């Protein structure tokens, strides 16, 4: 699956937010938090190259500019807070998926023929995670993925991401408000405060 060794980010800057530099190794899971409206989503979007920004990013010393934007986004996947669906049934959103993960997330093959309109918010978010993982990303960006979910569903998502980090060397960056979640998912992370992004251990 994932084979990256290191994500390097140098002076990533967007809008008026402070520049952000960090390195992330394979298998690492970190958090990014800060008051709402402080620009956490902006930073994640910049990491996925979804908005114009300054600074450089590289995966194993290959700059993001050295590949097309969609190749970069396959390697640096983004799971937004609210998932979007455009086909009638679930299967229409998948070219491929990992069937082990499908089961870990609590689904079976039949799920692919379900109607999107009948999914609960928890089911939607677990399927969105499966979809975001379909291209075997090397880094997964999670933007408050469990904000509207119950505890059980939240744990399933945390465990699946943790498993991928541990067993397959995927790296994860979680945007979260939730202090107890921070404890569970990461040893360290960053806090966005006014004009600085401060590294913090949990």
């Amino acid at each position, binding site marked *: 699956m994932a084979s990256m060794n290191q994500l390097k980010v140098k002076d990533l800057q967007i809008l008026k937010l402070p520049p952000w530099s960090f390195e992330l190794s394979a298998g690492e899971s970190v958090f990014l938090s800060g008051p709402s409206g402080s620009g956490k989503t902006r930073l994640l979007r910049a990491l996925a190259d979804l908005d114009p920004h300054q600074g450089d990013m590289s995966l194993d010393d290959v700059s993001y500019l050295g590949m097309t934007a969609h190749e970069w986004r396959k390697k640096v996947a983004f799971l937004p807070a609210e*998932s979007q669906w455009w086909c009638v049934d679930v299967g229409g959103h998948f070219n491929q998926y990992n069937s082990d993960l499908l089961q870990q997330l609590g689904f079976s093959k039949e799920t692919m023929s379900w109607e999107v309109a009948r999914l609960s918010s928890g089911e939607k978010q677990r399927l969105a995670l499966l979809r*975001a993982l379909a291209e075997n990303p090397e880094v997964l960006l999670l933007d408050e993925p469990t904000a509207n979910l119950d505890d059980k569903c939240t744990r399933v998502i945390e465990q699946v991401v943790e498993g991928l980090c541990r067993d397959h060397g995927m790296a994860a960056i979680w945007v979260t408000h939730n202090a107890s979640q921070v404890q569970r998912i990461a040893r360290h992370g960053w806090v966005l405060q006014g004009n600085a992004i401060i590294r913090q251990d949990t």
Partner: protein
Amino acid sequence: MNLIALTPLDLSLAAALVVLLALLSRILQLGIASQLLVAGLRTVVQLLLIGLILKSIFSYVHLGWISLLSIIMLLLAGREVMARQKYRLKGWWGFGLGTLSMFVSSFSITLIALNVIVNVDPWYTPQYAIPMLGMMLGNTMNGISLGQDRLNQSAWQQRVVIEARLMLGWNWSRAISDIRQDSIRTGLMPIINAMAAAGIVSLPGMMTGQILAGSPPMEAVKYQILIMFLITAGTGFGTFVAVWFGSRRLFDERERLRLDRLEVK
């Protein structure tokens, strides 16, 4: 020729109907009364002007003057295409793309028609060239304008869906392909309807005009078929150009959705 000349009084009666309509829409507060009147006034002034210009160009056939008139018509059409769109590309892109699409839809097709199909000598004989170009511009404008409008509006409304696809690593073209198809369909719908209904539900305007002016019906019909096909082809190619380049412009070189390149009217 049994042509019955229209008097100013005849035209005033028709104009009175439009004024009545404007009055009604003022009462119903539809907010289009003044637009209606201005458009009506423009029809009169513009048509009278073009009548005068055609009169002098017909009597003095010269490629230079005909080209000049054609280019002015093209530029005005390019402007009109973008004029009534709610979401449109900022700056020169809006006008430029409108003009380019109209060029493809009208200029190229009219040139082919004059040289290959109608085969008049010289090919720029103004009696054929100008009315045909005008008809192409006027009729293909609609489809191009609708297609472009649909594209920009859908991109605006479905930005989260488009971006969700980009997040999954789709390239820009795939991320917007369903919207693009939809926009081209929207652009082509009116002309397909017009072809399907031609002669059954409606008698097309050009043919009606020719018959009113005394042409034999079968000759009028043949010209109408020719024009219909040319308009369809022109609308199609022009809409392709407008929607393709328009959709590309909505993304930058890093395949980011750039709705800041649209302005909202």
